[in-house]
């Protein structure tokens, strides 16, 4: 087939695609490493089912699951069926589910076992031969990070990193390393085998509709762009707070902490989307080029500077939602002397023409007063006030707040006259809520991202230089904190965070209430 294609001129664009909401996607065989793990059972398999339900999967689609546990194809199909029934966002249609599972195989073995890769290659060949076409290959590494290099290395050794007549793509979950050195090492070992265009580093945050909507908000509205710069913006706050503790995740969380868990990836993603220049086109490299420029414009702190621009803390006992809440050190499986931060706040600056001098405050934490993810952009106050302010709360600077959760939307605070005989002003909100303006249900982030992998669109995936630029900013903070002696600051569970965070805030700036 490949040789035929070389002899003939390339075919024209598919004229049947125009106007279709769902564009054709090349037939694909997806292999999940770690197929019986939590991520696969709770997210990936249900996402694949929902794509099948909607008729969004490629015309022909096969799935290979691979994990250490020994089981037959039928046993894996049953596990997949149960996972989908339990975790799918919609009730499974049994006919669609059965039809999907017909093309599912399972390969048992450890990820460094060459036999696993021989069997996967055999399954791929068999699928191709049965169909009489060459399927694209996608390999999803839903494994512990320690296996990323191992699996990619083995794919290369067994010639699975490329395939005549089709595309081969590899999906890697976060975290990409736990520091810059590890991230560089992992990127090197992956790129020894694959081209960057084949690598899809998932940050599922980017698959969320509301995060993508930031691009629409900024670049599809003439209203905001003129003020989106240092001349009008006073400061920015990005908050991602949770009202719950670490639950049963102590094993992972205590080795990670808030900075690695949320700031290095999700929050820096939000920051780049907020601050990036308009890309020339919404293609993968154009968008990612602009995001990387923002990260490179952030000056990584020296070890000495860290104490002035970063605050960490740990939640102590308190009251959350009216109930007594444990402190972090009392949570199950947390070492009693742990200094892992459950709260992190940073003050960063993007040193470029648009943003120089605008402080950007980031904060994230567990067991805070409320669950919220938002970006608040505070504009500079008006230069002169003709109104007397007594008898009112006064004129406040305008704020544009983009909320990702719980109620996705955009609100703008403006000053308005309080009804009455006197000229008194108070801030009021103009609010737009996605839930009131769209009928469609947002797809799960993983559905969108899996489709993008199969389409070959890497726009919402993190590039190697982007990951490394993120770590370049975070690494010195981690190092300074690991060198620090003395107790880690505490905040009460259910509160708005530690008092120490107030020290980061400049002048008249204030943290928004959580």
């Amino acid at each position, binding site marked *: 087939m490949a040789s035929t294609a070389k002899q003939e001129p390339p075919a024209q664009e598919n004229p*049947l695609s*125009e106007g*279709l909401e769902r564009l054709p996607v090349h037939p694909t065989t997806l292999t999940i490493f770690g197929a019986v793990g939590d991520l696969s059972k709770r997210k990936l398999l249900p996402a694949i089912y929902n794509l099948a339900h909607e*008729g969004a999967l490629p*015309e022909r689609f096969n799935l290979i699951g691979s994990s250490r546990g020994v089981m037959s194809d039928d046993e894996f199909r049953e596990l997949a069926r149960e996972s989908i029934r339990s975790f799918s966002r919609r009730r499974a249609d049994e006919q669609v589910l059965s039809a999907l599972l017909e093309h599912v195989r399972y390969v048992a073995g450890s990820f460094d076992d060459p036999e696993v890769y021989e069997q996967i290659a055999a399954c791929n060949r068999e699928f191709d031969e049965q169909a009489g076409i060459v399927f694209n290959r996608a390999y999803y590494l839903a494994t512990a990070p320690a296996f990323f290099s191992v699996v990619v290395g083995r794919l290369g050794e067994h010639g699975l990193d490329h395939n005549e007549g089709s595309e081969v793509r590899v999906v890697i979950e976060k975290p990409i390393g736990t520091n810059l050195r590890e991230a560089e090492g992992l990127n090197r070992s992956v790129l020894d085998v694959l081209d960057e265009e084949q690598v899809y580093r998932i940050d599922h945050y980017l698959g969320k509709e509301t995060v993508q909507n930031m691009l629409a908000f900024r670049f599809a509205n003439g209203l905001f762009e003129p003020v989106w710069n240092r001349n009008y913006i006073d400061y920015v706050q990005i908050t991602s707070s949770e009202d719950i503790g670490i639950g049963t995740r102590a094993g992972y969380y205590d080795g990670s902490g808030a900075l690695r868990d949320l700031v290095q990836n999700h929050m820096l993603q939000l920051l780049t989307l907020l601050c990036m220049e308009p890309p020339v086109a919404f293609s993968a490299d154009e968008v990612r080029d602009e995001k990387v420029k923002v990260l490179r414009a952030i000056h990584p702190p020296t070890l000495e500077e860290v104490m002035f621009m970063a605050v960490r803390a740990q939640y102590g006992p308190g009251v959350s939602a009216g109930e007594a809440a444990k402190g972090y050190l009392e949570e199950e499986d947390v070492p009693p002397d742990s200094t892992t931060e459950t709260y992190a706040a940073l003050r960063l600056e993007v040193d470029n023409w648009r943003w120089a001098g605008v402080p950007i405050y980031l904060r994230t934490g567990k067991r805070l007063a409320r669950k919220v993810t938002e970006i608040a952009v505070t504009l500079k106050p008006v230069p002169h006030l003709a109104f007397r302010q007594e008898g009112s709360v006064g004129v406040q600077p305008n704020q544009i707040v983009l909320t990702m959760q719980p109620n996705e939307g955009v609100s703008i605070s403006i000053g308005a006259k309080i009804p009455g005989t006197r000229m008194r002003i108070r801030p009021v909100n103009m609010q737009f809520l996605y839930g009131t303006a769209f009928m469609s249900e947002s797809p799960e982030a993983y559905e969108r991202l899996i489709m993008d992998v199969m389409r070959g669109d890497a726009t919402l995936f993190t590039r190697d230089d982007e990951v490394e630029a993120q770590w370049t900013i975070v690494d010195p903070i981690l190092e300074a904190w690991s060198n620090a002696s003395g107790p880690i600051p505490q905040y009460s569970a259910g509160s708005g965070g530690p008092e120490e965070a107030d020290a980061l805030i400049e002048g008249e700036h204030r943290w928004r209430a959580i």
Partner: protein
Amino acid sequence: MQTGGSVWAGQDTTPSEIETALRDLLKERHARSEAYVPARVLNLVVVTDREWRGEIQNRLEQVGRYHASRTILCCVEPGREVIDAWATMEGDHAGRPSDICVLHEQVVLDVGPRHLDHLETIVDPLVVTDIPTLIWSPHGHPEAVDAMLDMAQVVLIDSINEPEPAAAVRWASELAGRAYVVDLAWLRSTPWRERVASTFDPEQWRRELGTISSVTVKHRPDSRVAGLLFLGWLARRLGWKPGSMVGQGDALHGIAAARRQDVTLRLEPEQAMSAPGLAGIAIETASGMRISLDRGSGGLSARRQTRGGRESSWTVLGASRGEAGILGEGIRQALLRDPTYGPALLAAEQMVR
């Protein structure tokens, strides 16, 4: 959970009173909780005979998340001289105290035939301004549709409701000249169009598009116009010039002139089919390739025979949307624009001239 609805009723009422009642209902909800916010996506105006009111309300109830923000149901009752109205406001609350509760409003109007020629003067004051308005008149009443076309942006039709396909495409075409048309008969063919596009998407199959020599579309006997629209779509997308189709028993047969050869077109009724719409498609090429798609379990059953005689079959996965899903899709499509329906409709008109 669904919150308890607020209700207002008025007899021998006016649009102004109804509009005031809607505002009062909203204020009353807001006074109870600021979590109540009105949906502001789409107005839907439905015109139906009084006797079908319950059925239409049931159908609208089943469209799931694709509820219009404000639905105005105009029920036509013979002999009625005055307007009676009921306004309700209901919302689905996700349960957490911090969540918003999106409210949907419904106004049911009992009107008489004498109101239809100027129905826009009753309905226009009731629609939410600055959001699109969709009109749906499933039981005829073209005079009501005509009266409201200037205030609406989109008209929802189902071409298969018109027994004569030529009249159906003529009516659709006429409407399309005055507003954006969403045709449920067209939406029923969407999965088929997507699948045919996918089948010919790989480069080696895409080359075969220029050699298509015959297309056969099977349909439920009352859904011939859905088949015509599908053939019209193929003809326009591939640059064919379709001629008039003629009867051959129960089937229709015609020829389209393609660049390299003529294409045989055939529409065949499938008596056993229960759901409206298409039952199957078979496409053959001059080089000997044959592709067919038929309704099957869990999706569409696909079969391909290559020019070398090799056969393969598979299931193209996808759940049936059902008629409620089709109607919901129709409401959703009112907010989008499909550039391929109009050209397909023009080609269909040429085929039934």
